[in-house]
């Protein structure tokens, strides 16, 4: 991945995460997740009744590596809320069970009390 490609991928990522309140970079799609960990985060978002943008990294190898470089995080899925990297499957599930995720979403005006 040369630097130039990286910038192009980073620009695309920045655009996606600023144009969409909630973005999930995942393997597969929300309707057809291709990996258990991606499916688990989709489940959390569905449980909260939240619309979100799902982006399948399997169909774009440049993005698959670029998103890992962008977030300095070696795995997929990756959840972004209001442009901020929240975490992967473990952290999202921890935050969901502790209520921290619900609070974050409410604070950011994405979830009614």
């Amino acid at each position, binding site marked *: 991945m040369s630097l130039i490609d990286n910038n192009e991928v980073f620009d695309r990522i920045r655009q996606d995460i600023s144009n969409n309140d909630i973005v999930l970079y995942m393997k597969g799609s929300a309707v057809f997740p291709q990996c258990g960990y991606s499916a688990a985060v989709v489940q959390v978002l569905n449980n909260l009744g939240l619309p979100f943008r799902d982006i399948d990294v399997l169909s774009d190898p440049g993005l698959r590596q670029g998103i890992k470089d962008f977030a300095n995080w070696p795995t*997929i899925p990756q959840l972004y809320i209001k442009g901020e990297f929240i975490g992967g499957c*473990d952290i999202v599930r921890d935050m969901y069970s502790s209520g921290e995720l619900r609070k974050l979403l409410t604070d950011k005006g994405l979830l009614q009390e």
Partner: protein
Amino acid sequence: MDAAMLEALIRAGIPDASVAVEDIRGDGAHYAATVISPSFEGKSRLDQHRMVFKALEGHVGETLHALQLTTRAGNGT
């Protein structure tokens, strides 16, 4: 990668950590690990996980398909 190597890599990267590793599917590629370390103090959960990933430089997502990670500041005694 086997559990012992995974544990050794984390300990080498975070010397004061107490580490518990479990091979959740018995296939050497899906692990759960709990890492407790004083050096996590004051760090976000994301940064705590990044410290563990750094200790596992290059393995996570490659030879190590899935690592279910739990981290906590403090000493594990």
